[in-house]
């Protein structure tokens, strides 16, 4: 598959370029970025022949089949629609969109031009999330009653990160940064339709942005989900507590560990769970996977997307699934602004 990348900032540099470069089935044909120096450096580093400062030039390159869009999310709509019009399959970084209108335009463009659209939602490929999904599907905790999901991470202010998530006029802060990961996991695990959303959040300091937030989702089947997002917590964690009519699931996403609880947990249950968790971590440390973390699953999503293009099957994360995340982001921001719940119209 011949790939072109639009936007070679921190995400592309740290994750996508090394991933694509290590895949035999992929050839990086061209890159485009507004920053000329960055384009030059990267094209030299990865020996890429076609380097552009205007993404439209990359779209005019007939040798490119698949475009990977790694630009700030407010640019996604324009670039996805234009890539689709140019007949390229599109893999877009999360969040695909922050408004439903934008998401719809992208989905329509993909349909009209008969191309495949896929969103980079790599966290659902964590074995712990897959295991949780399988247990829910098998009915091991009965029907879902509620989910408590946490994602605590530091703000993207490290060296090499652009500041659009902090300084951008329309930035949704933590909801737009790590929120899409958690929202996608929750909606992936509970496929019931969303009925209403209530959110609250703000800034611990003095900036006009959201650095911590809670989003509450009520689903059509009366189940609930609470999503706790924070850039400010003194810890890093991504975890889920899923309460079902037949039990409870504790999912430590990052450490790849799932614990199933029925009735109550005896100390021996906890001990056996800790032993299992430690065994898993030691195995991941030995293979090196533990240090790669979520970046490992970019390869899986890209590989699955290429297979779906070749076999004309469903994308691993479809535009429609990206739209669902956009529904939650848009409604959560509206709810925070107006301090009232948002009812989702279908």
């Amino acid at each position, binding site marked *: 598959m011949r790939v072109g990348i639009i936007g070679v900032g921190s995400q592309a540099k740290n994750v996508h370029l090394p991933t694509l470069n290590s895949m035999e089935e992929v050839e990086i044909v061209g890159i485009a970025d507004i920053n000329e120096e960055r384009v030059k450096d990267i094209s030299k580093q990865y020996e890429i022949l076609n380097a552009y400062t205007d993404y439209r030039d990359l779209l005019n390159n007939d040798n490119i089949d698949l475009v990977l869009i790694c630009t700030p999310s407010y640019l996604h709509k324009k670039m996805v629609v234009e890539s689709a019009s140019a007949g390229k399959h599109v893999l877009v970084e999360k969040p695909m969109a922050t408004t439903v209108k934008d998401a719809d335009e992208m989905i329509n463009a993909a349909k009209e031009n008969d191309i495949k659209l896929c969103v980079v939602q790599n966290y659902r490929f964590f074995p712990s999330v897959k295991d949780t999904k399988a247990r829910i599907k098998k009915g091991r905790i*009965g*029907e879902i009653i509620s989910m408590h999901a946490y994602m605590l991470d530091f703000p993207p202010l490290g060296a090499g990160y652009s500041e659009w998530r902090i300084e951008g006029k329309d930035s949704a802060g933590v909801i737009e940064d790590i929120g899409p990961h958690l929202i996608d996991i929750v909606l992936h695990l509970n496929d019931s339709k969303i009925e209403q959303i209530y959110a609250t959040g703000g800034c611990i300091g003095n900036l006009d942005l959201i650095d911590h937030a809670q989003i509450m989702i009520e689903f059509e089947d009366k189940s609930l989900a609470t999503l706790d997002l924070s850039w400010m917590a003194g810890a890093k964690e991504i975890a889920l507590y899923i309460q079902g*009519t*037949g039990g409870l699931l504790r999912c430590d996403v990052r450490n790849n560990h799932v614990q*199933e609880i*029925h*009735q109550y947990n*005896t100390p021996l*249950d906890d001990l056996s769970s800790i032993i299992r968790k430690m065994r898993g971590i030691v195995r991941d440390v030995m293979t090196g996977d533990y240090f790669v973390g979520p970046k490992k699953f970019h390869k899986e999503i890209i590989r699955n997307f290429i297979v779906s293009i070749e076999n004309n099957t469903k994308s691993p994360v479809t535009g429609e699934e990206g739209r669902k995340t956009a529904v939650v982001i848009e409604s959560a921001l509206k709810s925070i602004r107006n301090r009232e719940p948002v009812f989702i119209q279908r």
Partner: protein
Amino acid sequence: MPMEVMETRRDKMENIVSITKTNGYNDIYSQIETSINMLGRLGISGRVLIKLNLCDLRAPSSGAITHPLFLDGLLGYLRKNYQGLDIVVIESDATVSRPDIILRWFGFDKILEKWDAKWYNLSKHPTIKRKIGGFYFDEIEISAIFDNYDYFISLPKLKTHSLTKITASLKNQFGCLPYWRKSKFHNQLDEVIADANLAMRPDLCIVDGILSLGSGGAIYGVPLQSNLIISGTDPVSVDCVCAKIIGYNPRRIGHIKKSEKLGVGTSKYLLRGEVFRFKELNSDFRPPFWKENVLRLGRFLKQRYTLTKYLKKSV
């Protein structure tokens, strides 16, 4: 139904236990029909009692209580195939259960209304005493409705049980005892279950093993999509099959052994329907070996502690 009439009919029938594999609760009506048809002619008529298993306020999707769809399927089957039945659905209050509330909570009341069936809480109506000469009771107190019925259907769940290992058709009749605090019998559970079945023996048992409960029970455990219906006219035979499905030797289940000894039924039966390797399901049902033994140890220590406390008080 008088005991001697029941005995005669039982003698003439072949003792069959049927196993039907299902596709969840989809098309449950025809699945129940298939399961019951394998048993031959049943002669269901007049006043029919149906005993549910509403042992606690747990959602049907937990696998702990009779699924409303299962009852819906059975009532649909009865109404279609038998005319003029007076159907009464029964259950009693239990230590942790109020079936009158559970009935409304999970929509059983609407199903009863749909099929014109009555609801009868065994704990809230007059009782009678019946001399049985059982292991625990010489004379047992049961609901007066058991003096005035023509056919009795037991509708249990397929579950593991922390005290009796399995709970299926025989244990369901323990729930027919009209007492509220049934936990007082937990130390002689096997004997009381056998006695309850001697006094209130079901004519037909249909075990809901579509969504079962394993690794614990009878209230909390792992819900399992085992997709089975086990039916039979002999509760001992039905429980023997259920024990094998779960992974226990029926001869090592106290209440099965004791019920057979009392003449409630027999462990000799003919198996019809889906024949498969029971061992395929065993690992899902049985809790891990260490857990089973740790729980046993916990119960022993609890009893010992209670006994020590009692002795200290006595001194």
